[in-house]
C-alpha cells in the first residue's frame, strides 16, 4: 500500500483540516466529535445533515453549502459515524424547522443515525437512500444499499430546504427522489483501506466484480473482464429492470412514451475521466433506445470508494419538481452552479 499519509491514526483529521482550510469560505470544521458545518446558513430552514464513513469523498462533506447540506458527519474510513457526531452537528445547525438526516441504507449507518435521532431534542425525520439495484430487495434482508444516487437526493432536498419548506415536505421529496433513482456499479480493482494496509478483496487481472458496493463489498457476481459495451449493457439492463419493476412501466422506445432522466456516471476513484465519458456514451445510447430521454448529465468522481478502479451508472427519473430542484443554484466545494 502506497498512500499519502503522515501517521495513519491522524489521517482523517489531517484530511479534514485540509478540507476545512481549502474551503474556509464555505465550511467550519469541528473536532471531537468530528463534524463539518456550513458557513452563512440561512436562518429558518430545515437543517439537512448527512454523514457516513470516510473514503467516499466528495460525499458528503463536499456537498455542504448553499442549496445542499448544512452539516456532514465523517466516520472513520468506511465506518459509519457515531451518534455523538450527529447530535453535535444537529445542535450546531438546527434552526427551528427541524432536522433532516439523509442516511445511506447500511445497517451501521442506519443504527447510528437512529440512536442519534432517538436522543435528539428537536423535531426530526430521516430519508434513507437505497439506490443500489445490485442487492435486490427482499422481505428478509435490510434492503438495498445507498450509493451514488445519494448525492442526487441531497441536492434536491437541499434545494427545497433552502426555500424554507417544512420538514415533512423535505422528507417527502427525498423519499420520492430516492424511489426514482437506481444505480449499479462495477469494480475492476479493489480499494485499500489505509488502516488495513491491503486490498479489501482479491481480484484477478482478467476479472471484474459486477454490482460491487462502495466499500468494496462483493456484488452480484464475479465475472471475466469484458469489453466496455458488454459491461454497460449488463449494468443498464439491471437498472432498467429495477425501474420497470418499481414504476410498473416498460421503458421501451416502441411504447411511444419517453421518460426524462438524469444520467450520472460515477467514478469510484481510480478510473480516468476518459473512460467515464466512454461509459457515458454507451449508457446514454442504451437508455435512449429504451425510451429514456437523458436531459441532465453528470460524469466524474462523485461518490468514491477510495482508490478503487471502477464506476457506477445512476438513473434518476425526472419530473418537473425534481428537475426544478436539481437545476436550482448550488454552491458547495464539489458541486456548483448558478452562483
Amino acid at each position, binding site marked *: 500500500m502506497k498512500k499519502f499519509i503522515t501517521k495513519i491514526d491522524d489521517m482523517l483529521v489531517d484530511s479534514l483540516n485540509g478540507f476545512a482550510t481549502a474551503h474556509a469560505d464555505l465550511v467550519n470544521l469541528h473536532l471531537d*466529535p468530528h463534524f463539518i458545518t456550513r458557513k452563512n446558513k440561512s436562518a429558518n430552514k430545515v437543517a439537512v445533515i448527512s454523514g457516513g*464513513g470516510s473514503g467516499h469523498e466528495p460525499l458528503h462533506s463536499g456537498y455542504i453549502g448553499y442549496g445542499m447540506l448544512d452539516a456532514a458527519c465523517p*466516520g*472513520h*474510513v*468506511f*465506518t*459509519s*459515524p*457515531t*451518534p*455523538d457526531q450527529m447530535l453535535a452537528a444537529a445542535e450546531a445547525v438546527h434552526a427551528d424547522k427541524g432536522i433532516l438526516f439523509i442516511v445511506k441504507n*447500511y*445497517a*451501521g449507518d442506519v*443504527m*447510528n443515525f*437512529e*440512536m442519534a435521532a432517538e436522543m435528539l431534542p428537536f423535531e426530526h425525520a430521516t430519508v434513507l437512500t437505497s439506490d443500489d439495484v*445490485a*442487492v435486490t430487495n*427482499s422481505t*428478509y*434482508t*435490510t434492503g438495498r*444499499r445507498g450509493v451514488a444516487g445519494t448525492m442526487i437526493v441531497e441536492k434536491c432536498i437541499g434545494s427545497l430546504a433552502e426555500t424554507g419548506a417544512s420538514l415533512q415536505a423535505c422528507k417527502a421529496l427525498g423519499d420520492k427522489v430516492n424511489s426514482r433513482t437506481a444505480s449499479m456499479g462495477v469494480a475492476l480493482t479493489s480499494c485499500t*483501506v489505509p*488502516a*488495513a494496509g491491503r486490498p*479489501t*478483496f482479491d481480484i484477478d487481472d482478467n476479472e471484474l466484480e459486477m*454490482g460491487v*458496493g462502495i*466499500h*468494496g*463489498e*462483493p*456484488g452480484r457476481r464475479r465475472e471475466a473482464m469484458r469489453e466496455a459495451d458488454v459491461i454497460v449493457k449488463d449494468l443498464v439492463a439491471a437498472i432498467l429492470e429495477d425501474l420497470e419493476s418499481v414504476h410498473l412501466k416498460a421503458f421501451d422506445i416502441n411504447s411511444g412514451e419517453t421518460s426524462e432522466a438524469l444520467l450520472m456516471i460515477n467514478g469510484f476513484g481510480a478510473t480516468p475521466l476518459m473512460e467515464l465519458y466512454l461509459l457515458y456514451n454507451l449508457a446514454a445510447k442504451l437508455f435512449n433506445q429504451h425510451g429514456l430521454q437523458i436531459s441532465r448529465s453528470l460524469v466524474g468522481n462523485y461518490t468514491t470508494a477510495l482508490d478503487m478502479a471502477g464506476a457506477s451508472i445512476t438513473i434518476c427519473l425526472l419530473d418537473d419538481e425534481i428537475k426544478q430542484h436539481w437545476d436550482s443554484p448550488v454552491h458547495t466545494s464539489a458541486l456548483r452552479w448558478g452562483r
Partner: protein
Amino acid sequence: MQTDFILNAAKAIQQAIVANENALESLDRAIGDGDHYLNMKRGANAIIDIQPALATLTPDAALQQIGLKLLSTIGGASGPLLASFFMSMAKTIKENGDDSISKIAASFAAGVEAIRQRGKADLGEKTMLDVLIPVSNQFVLLAAQHCDSKLICATLIDTAEQGMLATKDLIATKGRAAGLGERAIGHIDPGAKSCQLMIVAVCKLV
C-alpha cells in the same frame, strides 16, 4: 459482580481482539468491508483508556459508561449494537441488582435482547446474534439450575464456539453480507467471531 471484574474483563477482551487481528480482518474482508477488526480494536482500546474513571464507578454505572464509550468510538454496525448491549445490561443491573448469577444472566439476556431490537435481526441471519442468543439462553438456563459458575462458563465457551462456527454455512440476511446471497456461504461472520472471542475471554476469567 464487581467493577474490578468488569475492568479485568475489558482488558482480557482487548487482548483477545488484538491477538486475533488476522482472523477478524480477513473475515470482514471476505464478506464485509474489512473494517471489523479496526472497529473492535478502536472500541476495546477506548475502554482501556477510561479504566481509571471506570474504576471509581459502581458496576452498573461502569457498564453504562462502557456502552456510551463504545457508541462514540466504534461506529459501523457493531458500534450501536454492542453499545446497546452494555447500556441495556447496565439498566437491568441498576434496576434488579447483580447479587446472584441469575440476575447477571438476566442482565446479559437483556443486553442481547437490546441488540436484537436495535438490529431487527434474529437467530440464523449470520450475525453476532448467532453466538449471543444461544449463549444467552444457555446462561439463563444454567443459572436457573444454580450451576457452578465455572461449569457455566465452560459450557458457554462451547456454545459460543458452536454458534460462531454455525454462521459459516448460513446465507446472511442482515448486515453488509446480506447482499452476497450464496457467496456468503463458507465464511464465518466477523461479528459472530468477535463475540465468541469476547465470551471466551470473559469466561476464562471466572
